């Protein structure tokens, strides 16, 4: 295990993934891509947990990852329901179209 990848590298990867996901969320207007980017962000967070768990030899990191997986699954199902509803109502997949709650 000592020859394993250093923790910093793992965390750096997680951070890069997270930022990529964030950029995706902010920049894409297609709701499907936004959802995918959120998945990327979730998985980046999960990766960070696993890296940290490996560093401290604790199972908690992996437990948290499973937890995130479950949440992500739930999130996807809700998200896809939104996609359908959005498509149904606005005939588009553009998130900006759904801005009816502006002040």
């Amino acid at each position, binding site marked *: 295990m000592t020859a394993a990848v250093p923790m910093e590298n793992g965390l750096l990867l997680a951070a890069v993934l997270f930022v990529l996901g*964030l950029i995706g969320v*902010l920049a894409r207007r297609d709701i499907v891509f936004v959802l995918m980017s959120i998945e990327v962000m979730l998985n980046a967070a999960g990766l960070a947990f696993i890296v940290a768990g490996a560093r401290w030899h604790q199972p908690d990191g992996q437990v948290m990852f499973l937890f995130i997986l479950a949440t992500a699954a739930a999130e996807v199902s809700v998200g896809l329901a939104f996609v359908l509803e959005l498509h149904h109502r606005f005939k588009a997949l553009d998130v900006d179209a759904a*801005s*009816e*709650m*502006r002040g």
Partner: protein
Amino acid sequence: MLSLLWLVPALPLLGFLVLTLVGFRLPRLGVAVIGVGSVALSCILAILAAASLLMAPPASHSYTQILWTWLRVGSFAPEIALTLDPLSLVMIVVVTFVAALIHLYSVEFMAGDESFRRFFAYMNLFVASMLVLVLADNLLLLYLGWEGVGLCSYLLIGFWYKDPVNVAAANKAFIVTRVGDTAMAVGIFLLFTQLGTLRIAPLMGRAAEQWPVGSGMAVAAAALLLGGAVGKSAQLPLQTWLPDAMAGPTPVSALIHAATMVTAGVYLIARTNVLFTLAPAVQLVVAVVGAATLLLAGCSALVQRDIKRVLAYSTISQIGYMFLALGVGAWSAAIFHFMTHAFFKALLFLGAGVVIEALHDEHDIYKMGGLRRQLPLTFWTFLIGSASLAALPLVTAGFYSKDLILWQAWSSSIGSAWLWAAGVLGSFLTAVYTFRVVFLTFFGDAKLQVSKKPGMAIRIPLVVLAVLSVVGGFVETPRFLGHASLFTELMRTTLPAASEAVGRAGDELTFDIIAASVMLVGIYLAYLVFLGSPRRFEDVARAPSVAALRRFWFAGWGFDWLYDRVLVQPYVWIAHRDRNDVIDQSYRGIAWLAAASWRTLSRTQTGRVRWYAAGIAAGAIIILAIVVFRT
């Protein structure tokens, strides 16, 4: 009889209540009977009360009747109480008598008016208030009567309320006098706070005990009461309301704005003469105000065209004489002049009413003329009244009262040659403006047709007042003419006699001859200018400087203009600029600020999910940065 004193003011008040509350059920005759009857009864009672006071004078020379305690708070316990002493006795007899005559006159004069009942209701209320004023035992009750007569004056000036001009005049009268009244109220606060009572007799006693002559308190108190007096009596600088007050019906002008109410200031000062004696500076002001007013008003009377305005200015001028008398300590002379003035000025106004009525509501004396033959009775009575006003020597009441004032202005220890000279000059002016009216109205060619001749209800008051304008003065005559001094004797117990200066005595006869000849010159001048050869004087009248002076005098020396610019317009301007209340605007400012920040912040709520996400990310980064870099 004295125990019925309360009925003297109560009867007119009852008349007012009956006319107001159930009067609409009464026919015109019933209204007239109640209106005139209540005042006439009150007059009879006043005379009876006067007789019984004079027949069997109480030890204190005055009779006080306490009706009930108005209110009692600690030591402040003014009562509704009436006091009859020689001063108030003269006042109530004159007031009720003249008022009864004028009420009688009004029955015919107002016969065609749609508001007949309202007129008599107001008139009765006025008489009641005036009687309360002069009978009041304490200053608070006096103030009630004081404001009451002011109210009635307001109601009656604006009696024909459909014309906004009349209403404006009424408002002006009330507001201007109220300025004076407020000064008087402050004076009452001061007197009670310092001396602990408002009953007039003890108040005067305590003032004389506690305040040395010339002390600050005495000066302040006297000055504040003087403020009230100049307001009510239309003296400088609050005289502007009286000429406009002529908007009321003529009997009102006769009763309120000539004979009775406007002399309330004279009464007040005479009543509180102790205070003025304690404050020589203020007493001098009284004399100077009187002298200045009588000259100013005399000049204005010279150039008026409206017959009632001439008489109004002459009233101001004559009250100026009374103030002059008060100012030199000739207390009883002032009251004497009040009495004779009440007779002849009421007479003149009533006569003017007949003339105006006869000529279809024409007020302009230049459009009148030649009425001597058409209205003979009116002419003769008016002539008698004018002679009395101008103080025609020996045969008129006005001569004796004015003579007394002029003589004491000279001979009193606080009199002076200047005051005397002002009085004499004033009597010259009086003669000119009075006979100007007589000549223009009753002599010359008839210019308008007379449409209406007076009936009995008008003739009787005219004749009675004319008789009194002649004989009313014989109760007090100069030394060289029998030296009757009934009036001064009567007043002796209430009003101190004027102190004569040593070495200034001189010869009263000489001064009388001077005054009389000045007055005769005045009549002759009026004859020349307005009747004899008016053409010769037209060029003089047209000269630019003379014309400007005439305009200036016509406008009452520009006081109205001045007050309008200095007081009325700024007040109205500020009020209208601030109609929406600048303080409220500041609260609206707060509300606007809240609304503005709401608008700004709500703009950030775009409804776009991606913006929210960006916001969350940015916030997280900032918080992380703070956590990381703070250490």
